[in-house]
């Protein structure tokens, strides 16, 4: 176990270094850079832009910039945002709660409904329910979230006036009820796709488990069908879902770009897009490292959990 942990840890470090180098190279390969936004400013000339680039340290060779950044990171300094002058960690931490709220509620909806649909679809294979669920999942997966979002806003906000047309809260009203009211539409829209994914995975996993010998044995022993499904089938079907959850977990914090844009939700997805748009290198690199660390940790935790739950799998 200790050897496994050590090996995974050293692999993770190497992976992080590779991710950071790749991210840095790609970021710097994109022409334009942080000063391109001033290209059409009538009052700024090339001298001004050259001077500002030098003041920001952007005139140094790329490898110097990279090592400077990496060295500071090792000392716990994630840098300062070019856009608003705040420390990168502050910038990220300001956007995490919004994303956590949205993704968290969407995931709860998606997992509970998706799991139920998946199990029911598998146990009632080729029933009307199964067909409807399959077609609905295909539709949900193929129609862009953007469209669902705008249709939702059109009907529930503009036509019916039941739900707000976006934003996380009404400015000046910080009540829980106000947040929940704003949360309904984005979390449901976001959950649609995840319900589809979860139900399909759950259905496949359940079908796999249902055809196993031990299920037949259990039935032959005269165990009640409900108990067969809940204990023997679902218990085993959930195993691969732990790995899936491990893969999905980081997105809880890294955000849902499209949904956040349609519903003007100030989360991580939007932060990433905006930072990329303004070439806010420190924040983009910070987000990259943040999500890389999350992904690596989540996968690691999933591996450990699977091993703990399923004694057949050995960590070696």
């Amino acid at each position, binding site marked *: 176990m200790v050897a496994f942990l050590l090996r995974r840890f050293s692999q993770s470090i190497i992976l992080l270094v590779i991710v950071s180098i790749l991210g840095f190279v790609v970021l710097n390969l994109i022409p334009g850079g942080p000063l391109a936004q001033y290209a059409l400013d009538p009052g700024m000339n090339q001298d*001004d832009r050259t001077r500002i680039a030098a003041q*920001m340290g952007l005139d140094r060779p790329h490898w110097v910039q990279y090592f400077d950044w990496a060295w500071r990171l090792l000392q716990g300094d994630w840098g300062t945002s070019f856009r608003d*002058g705040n420390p990168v960690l502050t910038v990220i931490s300001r956007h995490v709660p919004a994303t956590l709220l949205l993704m968290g509620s969407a995931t709860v909806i998606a997992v509970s409904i998706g799991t139920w649909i998946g199990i029911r679809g598998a146990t009632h294979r080729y029933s009307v329910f199964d067909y409807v669920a399959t077609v609905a999942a295909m539709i949900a997966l193929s129609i862009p979230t953007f469209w669902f979002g705008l249709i939702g806003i*059109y009907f529930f906000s*503009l036509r019916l006036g039941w739900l707000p*047309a976006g934003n996380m809260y009404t400015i000046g009203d910080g009540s829980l009820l106000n947040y929940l009211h704003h949360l309904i539409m984005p979390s449901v829209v976001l959950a649609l796709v995840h319900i589809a994914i979860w139900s399909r995975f759950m259905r496949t996993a359940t079908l796999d488990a249902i055809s196993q010998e031990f299920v037949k044995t259990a039935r032959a022993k005269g165990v009640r069908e409900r108990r067969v499904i809940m204990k023997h089938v679902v218990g085993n079907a959930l195993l691969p879902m732990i790995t899936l959850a491990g893969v999905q977990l980081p997105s809880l914090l890294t955000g849902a770009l499209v949904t956040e844009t349609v519903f003007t939700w*100030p989360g991580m997805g939007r932060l990433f897009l905006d930072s990329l748009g303004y070439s806010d290198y420190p924040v983009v690199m910070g987000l990259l490292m943040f999500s890389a660390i999350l992904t690596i940790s989540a996968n690691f935790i999933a591996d450990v959990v699977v091993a703990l739950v399923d004694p057949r799998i050995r960590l070696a």
Partner: protein
Amino acid sequence: MTKKPFKLPDMSRRNALGLMGAGAAALLAPNLLGKPAFGQTPPDAPAGRIMVGVSQEPTVFNPLMPHIEVDDNVHFSIFDALFRINENGAIVPNLASEVPSLENGGISEDGLEWRVRLRDDVRWHDGEPFTADDVKFTLELIVNPDFRSWRTTGHNLVRDIEIVSPTEVTWRMEEPFAPYLSFLTETFIVPAHILSNESNPNEAAFNRAPVGTGAFRWGRRTAGDNLVLQANPDYFGEGPYIEELIFRYIPDMTVLFTQFQSGDIDIVGRSYITQDNYEAANALPDRVVDLVSTPSVESIYLNMERPQFQDPAVRQALYLALDRGSIIDVLYYGLPKPTETFMPQQSFYYHDGLPTHEFNLDKAREILDEAGWLPGPDGIRAKDGVRLSFNNSTTTGAHLREQAQQFVQQTFAEIGVQMNIENLPAAVMWGDFWGQSEFDTAMVGITFLIAADPDVSNRFHTAAIAAQGGRGSNTGQYSNTEVDALLEEGARTFDPDKRREIYLRIQEIIRSDLPFLPLFAYTQVYGRKAGIEGFVPNTNTRSETWHAAGWYWS
């Protein structure tokens, strides 16, 4: 402290001329706009709040640091400059008590000695008095080599700033530079008593929670979402009449318009309501929709160093082959105004007698034939080995421009000119590709004037060609010695009448040289809820909230 309302008085000769240029109706406009006949009057105490929708996020709150237009909205609300430029193009006092001119002795005859007198009743949001110290500190900070300052043009000519008294400051200019007065309308004064104690002004806490003298003070910011400013009850000028001024950041313009429809947003300015939504916006109940002309001119920019564009005949023929009427009507819903010059049509310096564009393919062919550009075997004209084939570039994803390019491509093809569309992502397009003149032609909307001053040296002077080692934004690499001389003279001339003559002549030469082919001057669709009074669009600033102090709910 008694309130002396800061109206728009002090009719210096220059201002009066500016107003005359804008027309007599405009002269009366400021009062008419805010106060219709049966008199809405502002409330006695600030009441209510106004939510402004913006599709870029304001993030830079130190007005002297590099920022984009949306940040100006915040600067205009929190800070004051020495002067402001109003909706008629007149420069009026703000923190200063008078606008210096040759007549009042504020500017010496040679244009070198400047004297600015300041108001004595202004306090910073933290209660400290505003004095000449703050002006001196601000002007010095801008040229501090350690400070990451925004624009330095003009400021780098200022020498020997002296504080004569708390309400009077003087300085000497290295050379006479008339546009500086306009530049000062965009130079917001920052507090010396806060920033002078900072070892590194680039990272001062002030930059994230600014202290100004303006009608609104810093409230709270929710990053990625909104910024709340609060009324400054001790403001020395008119207003504010609302308690809170809120900027809500909505990145997607479709969603922004939806929120304007749903009533979440009270005011939408700039180009955030797209032209195709103009009809829909007009049809909304309880909304006021204005068409506001802007200083931004859409054109096809030519890289004059390319061999294809050296011959004036080619540029004339291309202009004749531009079906801009159709582009305006079909793509832009007829909203923008055709123009022949870089000068905004509401400027005192606008030349209204320039030859009018005509769309005439036969004439274009004739001119090219006469000049010796004859069609080759592939139908494309050539002369001395130079084929009339070139790229046209703009930002990918700018749908209207992409369609306009196709219009242009077709009509150019009809006269034997091949225009290839080569569009690039914004970051690439406006990087070195634009700045170092690596393009053949570009479809681009440009604001030529800085702070509404007619000086366009930065765009058209030979010394401003960055690709040839110059310092400026003459990306078309236009070079004309007569224009150079006129630009230099214009920047030295303080008398508005004489300046006007110079810039009219410059516009004539540029119209005949055609370094860019003008398409139209942009018109923006502004929307607001009925019941908001005192809203005055001002195309001489980059901000729709330049005078939010005067806004109130009826």
